[in-house]
C-alpha cells in the first residue's frame, strides 16, 4: 500500500506545503505497511542532493522527470506513469493551485476517485479515508475510495511538516513521454511579484484588512493600528484583486500562510480560502459588522461593530496603553 506525492519546487527549494504532503504520505504509508515516494518534475536545478532531501521527510524514493515547471499537465503525465508502472495505491497532494490541477488531471487519466479540501487522512482497515469539511465547515464528511488508486488533495497546509530526519531518498530518473496536450501550455513568466513587497510572514502581529474596510483608503485605518501595535498589515485576496493592497500582503489559499501571535481581522468575513492562510495564529481578534460572519466562529475575540468607529479609537487606546 504505497503512497505517491508530488513535491513542487521553485528556485532550488521545495514548497513547504509539499513537504507537509510528503511527511503525511510517509506517516500514512507506515500505517498501511507501505512506502511513500515523491515525484518531482523540472530541469537541471533538481539536483540529486536536492531530491534526496525529501528523504528527511520520509520519502524512500524520488521519481525525477524532465519537464516544464509550474504547469500541471506534465506532472500528470509523470505521475500517471509512475503510478501505473509502480502500482501506487494513493496519490496525495498538499493544497495550492497545482495540487488541485494535478490531482484533478490524474482523476481523469486513471478513472480514479478524488477528494479535495481534505483536512485529515486516516488509515482504516488497510485503506485511506479522507476527511473533508463541507458547507462552510459546518460538517465533516469521511470519504472512502471504491477502488484504487485514490486521489487526495489536501487543503493548504493541512498536513504538518515532520521534523527533518537523516534519511536520504533514492533518486530514480523516469523517462516520460509527455502527452501532446501537455506541451501546449507554455510558461511565459513565473512568480511575478506585483505591488510593493511587504514582509508579513515574520511579523508577530498582523492587522489584516478585507472588503469591510469599504475602500482602498480604509487601509489607512488598518495601517495606523498596525503601527500602534508594532505589527504589519495583511490583506485578503478580494482586496488584493481589487487593487486596494499589494499582492505581497495577501493571506490565504493563493497567498501567504501566517501564524503570528496576534491576528486582528478588520472587515474580513473569514471565507475558507482565507482561513487556511491564518488559522494557525495564536490569538485571533475579528471586527466585523456582520454578526454572522464565519470569522467569528474561529476568532478568540469577536467584535460586532463598525470599523470606522472602532479602529481609530482602538489605535488611540493602544498608543495610550503602550505609552
Amino acid at each position, binding site marked *: 500500500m504505497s503512497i505517491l506525492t508530488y513535491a513542487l519546487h521553485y528556485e532550488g527549494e521545495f514548497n513547504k506545503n509539499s513537504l507537509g504532503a510528503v511527511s503525511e504520505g510517509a506517516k500514512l504509508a507506515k500505517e498501511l505497511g507501505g512506502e511513500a515516494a515523491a515525484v518531482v518534475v523540472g530541469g537541471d536545478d533538481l539536483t540529486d542532493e536536492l531530491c534526496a532531501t525529501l528523504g528527511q521527510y520520509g520519502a524512500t524514493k524520488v521519481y525525477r522527470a524532465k519537464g516544464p515547471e509550474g504547469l500541471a499537465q506534465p506532472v500528470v503525465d509523470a505521475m500517471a506513469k509512475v503510478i501505473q508502472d509502480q502500482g501506487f495505491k494513493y496519490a496525495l497532494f498538499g493544497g495550492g493551485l497545482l495540487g488541485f490541477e494535478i490531482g484533478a488531471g490524474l482523476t481523469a487519466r486513471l478513472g480514479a476517485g478524488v477528494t479535495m479540501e481534505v483536512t485529515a487522512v486516516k488509515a482504516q482497515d488497510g485503506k485511506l479515508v479522507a476527511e473533508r469539511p463541507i458547507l462552510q465547515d459546518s460538517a465533516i464528511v469521511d470519504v472512502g475510495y471504491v477502488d484504487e488508486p485514490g486521489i487526495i488533495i489536501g487543503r493548504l497546509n493541512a498536513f504538518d511538516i515532520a521534523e527533518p530526519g537523516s534519511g536520504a531518498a533514492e533518486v530514480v530518473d523516469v523517462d516520460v513521454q509527455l502527452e501532446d496536450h501537455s506541451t501546449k501550455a507554455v510558461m511565459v513568466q513565473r512568480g511575478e511579484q506585483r505591488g510593493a513587497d511587504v514582509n508579513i510572514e515574520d511579523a508577530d502581529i498582523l492587522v489584516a484588512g478585507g*472588503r469591510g474596510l*469599504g475602500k482602498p483608503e480604509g487601509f489607512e485605518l488598518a495601517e495606523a493600528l498596525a503601527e500602534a501595535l508594532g505589527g504589519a498589515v495583511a490583506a485578503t485576496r478580494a482586496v488584493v484583486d481589487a487593487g486596494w493592497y499589494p499582492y505581497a500582503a495577501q493571506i490565504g489559499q493563493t497567498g501567504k500562510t501566517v501564524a503570528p501571535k496576534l491576528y486582528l481581522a478588520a472587515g474580513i468575513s473569514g471565507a475558507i480560502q482565507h482561513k487556511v492562510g491564518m488559522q494557525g495564529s495564536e490569538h485571533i481578534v475579528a471586527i466585523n*459588522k*456582520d*454578526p*454572522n460572519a464565519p470569522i467569528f466562529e474561529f476568532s478568540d475575540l469577536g467584535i*460586532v461593530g463598525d470599523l470606522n*468607529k472602532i479602529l481609530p479609537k482602538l489605535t488611540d487606546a493602544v498608543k495610550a496603553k503602550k505609552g
Partner: protein
Amino acid sequence: MPTAPIEFPPPVDSAKEFVGPPTDPADERIEVGVAIVGGGPAGLACAIRLTQLLAEEEALMESLGEVPVALVEKGKGPGSHLLSGAMMKPSAMQKLFPDLPEEDWPTYGTVEKDALYLLPNGKRAIPLRPTPPPFRNHGNHVTSVAQLGRWLAQQAEDAGVYILGETAGAKLLVADGRVVGVRSGDKGRGRDGEPLSNFEPGSDLIAQATVLCEGTQGHLTGAAIRHFDLGSEDPQQWELGVKEVWEVEQPLDRVIHTMGWPLHFAAKYREFGGSFLYPMGEDKVSMGLVVGLDYRDARFSVHDALQQLKGHPLVARVIEGGKRVAWGAKTLPSGGYWARPRQLWAPGMAICGDGAGMVNVPTLKGVHYAMHAGMFAAEAIFERLKAGRMCDDLSNYAAKVEGSEIEKDTYRSRNMRQPFARGFLVGGAIANMMEISGGRFPGGRWATHDDATVDVFIGKERDYPKPDGKKTFDKLSSVFATGNATRDDAPNHIRIQDKVPLEVALMWQNMCPAQVYEVPDEELEAAKQNGNGKPDGGHEVKLQITPSNCVQCGAITAKGGRLTPPEGGDGPNYQVT
C-alpha cells in the same frame, strides 16, 4: 415644540420623477400585451386569470403579440420580497383553481382552534372567550406568501406568462394622458448613481394595459395616485409587521392572537397592534408583531418589541427548544375603506391589492383580496380587449371590486381602526361596539390621518432584551438571515432628509427593522450637550444611512421618507415568510 416627520418631507416629487413618456427609440421598445408590475398574490393571480381567459380566445391571444402577458418583479423572483402572517381566506384560490383540491394548495392547511389573549404585562395572559369574530379563522389556510408566490409563479410560467425577475418597475410610462407601460430600473450604478463598467440601462415595456400590483407602499402606485389624482380625501395609514418563522419541538395546535403588552397602553403612546402565532404544519410556527405606524414614542421599535414578546410565558412555551429559521418585515395599509384610492384605475392602468389598500385590518386579511382584485383586473382588461377596445376605461374593474367581498368586508370594518388613535383602551371599547353592531354603530365617517403627521417625542429608554443570538436577535443578524446580498456600493434608493431633529432621527433609527438609519454617537453626544445633557430633541442631527440593509418594508414612506425600488434583484430573498 412638538415635531412630526411630515415637516421634513423627502426630497422627491414622485409624480414628476416617476411618471413620464417612453424615452427609448420606438424600435427598441419592448411590446407586450398586458404588463403587470409585482409578483405577489395580486399580480400573479392577474397573470394566471388572464392566461385562463385568453386560452379560449386564440385570435385575441395572437393579436397581443409574442408576449401576451409579462410580469416584472423587483426581487430575485416572485416570493423574494413577499411576507405576510398569514391566514388566507380560501375564496380566491377556489375561484382561480376551481379543480384543485384544497389539500393540494401550497399552504399549511386549516387550523381548528383559535385563541385570543390580552397580555396585561410580561407574565400574565388573559384569554378572551369566546374568540371575537375577527380573530376566528375556521376554514382559513395558514400560508407563507413567499412560498405561495413561488408556486403561483410556476403556474403562471407554465401558462405562458413571461416572468421577469430582478426587474424593478421604476417609471410609469404615460403618453397623451394614458398609461402605456412601465420602464424597468437601471442596473449597475455606483453609490453616487454613477454608471459602473457593467451599467445596463432600463427598458421601456409598452403594454395595452398595465396592472400595478406592487403591494404595500407601491412605488409606481404612489406616483400614479398623485399623477392622476386618484387618492381619497382620507390619507392612507400603515402598520409595520415584523415576523419570524421558528422550527419548534412541539406542534402548535391553534391560531393565537394577542393584544396589549409589550405595547404601552397609555393614550399618549398611541400604540395599537398585536401579535400572531400560526402553526405551519407540525414543526414550524409563524409569529410576528404588527403595530400601527401612528405611534409616537421615538424609542419604540417593532423588531425589539417582538424580541421582548418572546419572553412572555405564552410565547416562550411555544418556541422553547426551537430555532429561528426566518425573519422579515413589511408594512400593511391599515386605512381601510375610507383611505382606499377614490378611483382604482386610470386610462390603461389598474391598481390591485395592498397598493390599493385592500386590507381588512381587524381580521388581518388581505392576501385573498389581492388575488381577487388581480383576477377582476384581468377580467376587466379581457372584456375590453375582447370587445376590440382600448383599455382606456377600466371602470368595469372598479365595478367588479365594488360588487365583491373586498367592498363588503372593508365597508363593515370601515371605522374600526381609527378609534385606536385615542389609545388602546378607549379605542378597543369603541371598536368592540362597531364589531357587535356589524359596523353600524357609531357609523359616520371616521377620518384617518397621515402617520407622518403624528407628533413624536423621546420617551424613556425601553427595557428591550439584549439579543442572545438564540432566542432574541439583533437587527443586523436578522437582516442577514433574509439572504439580503445587496451590493455595498449600490446607490441609495431611500429618499430622506438626513439632517433632522433628534426625535425624528431616533424614531427612524428605532422604527427601521433593518438598521438602515443610525444616529452616529458623536451626533447623539452633541445633541445631548445642546439639550442640557439629555437627548430631548430639538437639536438637529445628521443621520448615517446604510441602504444596503434595507428589506423593503416600506415603513419610511409612511413616516416621512420615500422608498423607491432598489436595483432589481436586491433586497431580501425571503423563503418561508
